[in-house]
């Protein structure tokens, strides 16, 4: 207890500095989002899995002394063993090496396609939403038309023109894939551009480029990241699907889709061959989706307190 003496009652007046001081630790948007994401166990587990997957995609093919294209017709369709950890396929190729080579291809396609979708969609949607009116009308009608093109027909046409391969698959996915992002960004921008901080920037004389880059995009970045996170598994799945029906990467290159395709041919005799590609496709997709959910919660400003 404080002793009450007369001198304690000397008048000292207010202390404005103290009243204005901010006592809470400063936390940027990203620090706050990371803190929130860390609390989400499922999303963190997914993130760890995806990081491990990425590392394995880089080093996995070198962990065994085989190349993904090395055939050994003496050792076809072997079950997993000390020499061949995931076994071999019908041409005697090591499945462990091929699985990680496949991961490399699948992840590359998934991430590249999602990023390209993101970049094109953000620029297109940002411009359409910011300028609005007639510009928006025309730009969005183009989006509608692209949206209406049957995806498979486009892929097959591109295959004919460009020949099958990685670039073709990615091009095919990006040509139609960015429209989703464009719509998302446009919607966000339409909302944001009426906000007073955007009006304030306009009043200060800011150019449209500055407003889009400094004010609109940074405030849309949360939903953009979430959307890209959801786009990656979609692209991986599409690639797997195309490869499975034979429109994907060509042998001897492997992706999870072609591995699954190869495995189904011998499914009745060696069912375990399907296990690895199928397992990685599903767990990767699940992880990306769970991480996306976690990111959505972490980046949502409405949950910020």
């Amino acid at each position, binding site marked *: 207890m404080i002793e009450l003496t007369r001198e304690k009652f000397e008048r000292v007046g207010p202390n*404005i*500095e103290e009243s*204005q*001081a*901010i006592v*809470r630790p*400063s936390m*940027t*948007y990203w620090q706050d989002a990371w803190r929130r994401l860390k609390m989400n166990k499922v999303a963190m587990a997914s993130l760890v899995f995806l990081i491990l997957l990425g590392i394995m995609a880089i080093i996995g093919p070198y962990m065994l002394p085989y190349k993904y294209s090395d055939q050994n017709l003496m050792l076809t369709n072997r079950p997993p063993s000390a020499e061949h950890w995931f076994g071999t396929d019908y041409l005697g190729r090591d499945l462990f090496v091929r699985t990680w080579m496949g991961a490399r291809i699948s992840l590359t396609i998934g991430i590249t396609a999602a990023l390209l979708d993101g970049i094109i969609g953000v620029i297109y949607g940002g411009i359409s939403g910011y300028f609005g009116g007639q510009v928006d009308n025309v730009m969005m009608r183009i989006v509608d038309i692209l949206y209406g093109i049957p995806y498979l027909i486009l892929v097959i046409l591109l295959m004919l023109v460009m020949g099958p391969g990685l670039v073709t698959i990615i091009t095919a996915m990006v040509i139609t894939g960015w429209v989703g992002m464009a719509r998302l960004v446009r919607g966000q921008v339409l909302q944001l551009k009426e*906000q*007073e*901080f955007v*009006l*304030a*920037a*306009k*009043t*200060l*004389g*800011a*150019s449209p480029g*500055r407003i889009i880059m*400094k*004010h609109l995009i*940074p*405030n849309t970045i949360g939903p953009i990241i979430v959307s890209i996170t959801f786009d990656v598994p979609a692209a991986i799945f599409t690639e797997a699907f195309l490869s499975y029906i034979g429109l994907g990467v060509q042998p001897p290159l492997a992706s999870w889709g072609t591995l699954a395709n190869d495995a189904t041919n011998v499914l009745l005799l060696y069912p375990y061959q399907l296990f690895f590609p199928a397992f990685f496709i599903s767990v990767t997709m699940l992880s990306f989706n769970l991480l996306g959910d976690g990111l959505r919660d972490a980046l949502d*400003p409405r949950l*910020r307190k």
Partner: protein
Amino acid sequence: MSSNDKALLEVKNLKKYFYVSGGVLKAVDDVSFAIKKGQTLGLVGESGCGKSTTGRTIIGLYEPTGGEIIFDGEKVNHLTYDGRKKFARRAQMIFQDPYASLNPRMTVGDIIGEGIDIHELYTGKERMERIYELLDMVGLNREHANRFPHEFSGGQRQRIGIARAMAIEPEFIIADEPISALDVSIQAQIVNLLMNLQQEKGLTYLFIAHDLSMVRHISDNVAVMYLGMIVEMTNSVELYANPLHPYTQALLSAVPIPDPKVEKKRERIILEGDVPSPINPPSGCRFRTRCKYAMDICKEQTPSLREVSNGHFVACHLFS
């Protein structure tokens, strides 16, 4: 108050219509006023009366449908991009919502410095010095420059908004309801800050508000708007001592007085009903549907704003 008798801002027959699905929304319909250098015009009205639209049209956020805006002798409506940028250095705006008017992803320093960056006034160390100076000017600490808007209280955020507008040293500021989202005790802080700045820098204000209480303290003249039109305009002493338009009287009477004895004795003028929709507003005088003095002529003719005594303008058939 000011020796300079020239109007810095002159608004002539300003109209701003929005074409909406239900018809034409005449947000601002034939509004004229002038503000002399160094003075403040208070623009008062309830939601939907067009006061904010008036402010935004003057500053160039909206293109006027008709009429003229003359700033320091030059027409400033329909400017090119470069013309607008030049005009921006002289006329600035303070916004209503202390939460929505600051970009949540920018530090306070960058928010205040935005005008400096756009107009390339200072760079590097000088820029930071200027930002600190502005923080001091609005009563915040230097340490606040690295913080983000969500860390501040409403009153502090509004100070940041004022510092942002002041950064490029404008002559004219439109304050669009800068205090209506704040606590009463903080409102007085902001009004006093604006008045101090006005005295120091010789600023001219258009101060927009939704009630008549705080406006009185900062304004030289007050204009009352109802559904897109000015119904009464005079100096701030006359308006409070001798309100003529029935709507102004009701607005004055509606503000509660912080004195229980007075408040209990007081006969309030309670307006019936709500403000009609500005899409297809009532014919003639737009206030007639809520006016207890409404006459036949009010339905037929829109009263024009006319001078009834020296410098006291009213748009009401009771005074013609």
